[in-house]
């Protein structure tokens, strides 16, 4: 399994200015993130709002520059690339956003929306060839050729997300970054889009970074899952294994909170409300029921606890196990 995206020790700090002329207050959004996206696999990045999932996508896509650390996409470092190299890279790596209402220009027809990336990269310039390509493209995402001449407002949310997917596929990329692509959709439409994503991943041999807050969705689509909390990766493992044997107390908390039909409301696992982080130690310690003194002082490192299963928890490095009480 070769990796097509390698993220190593990535840090990203934003500066939040409280006053117009004041010095910024540094907010570390990503802390020491190391991840790799393997060829032809789907990596799920799961976490709650504000944990840094979307920032990671932005750094990966070259929209934001990392503070330190490296992102290497198919052998090329993103932050060190020239604009021309970035342009080339974007043929290979495309993105789908969460909000299908905000991510399509309302004044462009579907044909224009889908042609724009082709124009930028000077592809399919022959008119007939391009028409044929566009027709095949919309059919691949479950729309029909007559939809090409319509505007985004004429479509429902699910159809718009199909257009966004078609637009991302127009350049025939190898890597797809999907930032919460189904969260804004109605329940009865989510399943359609998830099926579509799975199909195109297979037929086009895509490697996908799939960002979501929904574990059930991640389980359906992902081969590997990484769990993020306050800018750090807490646990990463093959999806099946992570769900069967979650090691990190945070992953366990997250999983037990997912509502499911037939699952009774969990009784309060005496979880403390998120207290102020002391700045040192494990970011989850203020909420963790197993937190010890060492957790508040030292940041745990990711340790391989089973083949392919990495977890950052001090309790594990001390030779204890975090088995779920069954």
């Amino acid at each position, binding site marked *: 399994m070769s990796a097509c995206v390698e993220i190593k020790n990535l840090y990203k700090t934003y500066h939040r200015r409280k006053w117009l002329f004041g010095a910024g207050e540094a907010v570390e959004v990503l802390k020491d993130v190391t991840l790799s996206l393997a060829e032809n696999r789907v990596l799920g990045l799961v976490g709650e709002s504000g944990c840094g999932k979307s920032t990671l996508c932005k750094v990966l896509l070259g929209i934001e520059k990392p503070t330190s650390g490296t992102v290497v996409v198919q052998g090329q470092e993103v932050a060190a690339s020239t604009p021309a190299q970035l342009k080339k890279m974007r043929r290979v790596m495309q993105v789908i956003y969460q909000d299908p209402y905000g991510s399509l220009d309302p004044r462009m027809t579907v044909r224009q929306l889908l042609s724009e990336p082709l124009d930028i990269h000077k592809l399919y310039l022959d008119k007939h060839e391009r028409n044929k390509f566009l027709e095949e493209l919309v059919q691949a995402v479950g729309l029909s050729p007559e939809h090409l001449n319509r505007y985004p407002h004429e479509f429902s949310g699910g159809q718009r997300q199909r257009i966004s997917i078609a637009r991302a596929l127009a350049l025939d990329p190898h890597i797809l970054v999907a930032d919460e692509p189904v969260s804004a959709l109605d*329940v009865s*439409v*989510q399943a359609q889009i*998830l099926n579509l994503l799975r199909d195109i991943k297979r037929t086009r041999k895509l490697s996908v970074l799939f960002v979501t*807050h929904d574990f*059930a969705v991640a389980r359906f689509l992902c081969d590997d899952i990484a769990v993020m909390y306050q800018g750090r990766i807490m646990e990463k493992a093959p999806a099946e294994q992570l769900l069967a044997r979650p090691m990190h107390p945070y992953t366990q*908390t997250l999983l037990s*909170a997912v509502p*499911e039909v037939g699952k009774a*409301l969990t009784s309060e696992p005496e979880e403390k409300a998120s207290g102020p982080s002391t700045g040192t130690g494990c970011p989850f310690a203020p909420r963790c029921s197993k937190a010890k003194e060492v957790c508040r002082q030292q940041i745990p490192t990711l340790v391989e606890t089973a083949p392919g299963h990495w977890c950052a928890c001090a309790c594990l490095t001390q030779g204890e196990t975090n088995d779920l009480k069954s």
Partner: protein
Amino acid sequence: MSISPVLQVEDLHIDFQNDQKPLPVLRGLSYTLAAGRVLAVVGESGSGKTVHALSLLRLLPAAGRVSGGKILYKGENLLALCEKELRQVRGQKIAMIFQDPAASLNPVLTVGEQLTETLRAHRKLTKEQARQEAVKLLEKVGIADAEKRLDEYPFQFSGGMCQRVMIAMALALSPDILIADEPTTALDVTIQAQIIRLIKQLQEREKMAVIFITHNLALASQVADEVLVLYGGMCMEQAPAKELFSQPKHPYTQGLLASLASLKTRPERLPAIAGQPPVPGEIVTGCPFAPRCPRVKEKCRQSLPPLTKRGEHAVRCFWENKP
């Protein structure tokens, strides 16, 4: 077991005015809510679930209009009340919490000012008494350090904490009915679980009736005694929660339940419902679900199936008992 109903909705119709043409968004909704019970109203966006909730408190936007039916609170028709009488109902008898807690609080007033405002508007309390009361309320919804946090502004509270404040405000006057309109949609799952537990606990302790509006079937299954499934402004199926989730009878409910991704299994494909949900207000003859229904027949497109009730389970489908 017959418990006296606190709320009866009878054949409620709501239209929205659009270019002189009324668009029906709710078409004949009826249900009875017993004291101390939780009714979940489940539906997708545009199904009419929020509009229905707003109409219970007569808070419909200007374009919306109740065009028929009755809303009876303990036998009294809320639709016939004047503005002054309504003020006695809102908050005191029926209270509501909304989806976006941060946007529902006034950002320039402290949390304490907002809580005491509600208390003092309805009850004769001195400032000091109202403050004491407010502290108790915040403690009741699980906010630590209540005395101090009363003087903080909403921006100093996280989303989950804001929703707790909203719940405290809703409980301030001990209402009989709490309407919760997607109270956890804007929150993270761990916070969602906390808020749901809180609502459930308070509901049991205070013996409140709750109308829980959500698009999330799994959540509905966890909190509700009874579930009502809305689609295209109509009730498709209504049943006690256990029965609805173990034996869904309407093809829409069945399809929706089957299409949910689950933590337990990993199917090759999700059995999705084809097509798109209807546009709100679109006039359709026949069953609103017909264009997407796997069991559709000619009859479904031509006439609207009635809501037929067998025991406590009501279904709007012609073929409910036929293959």
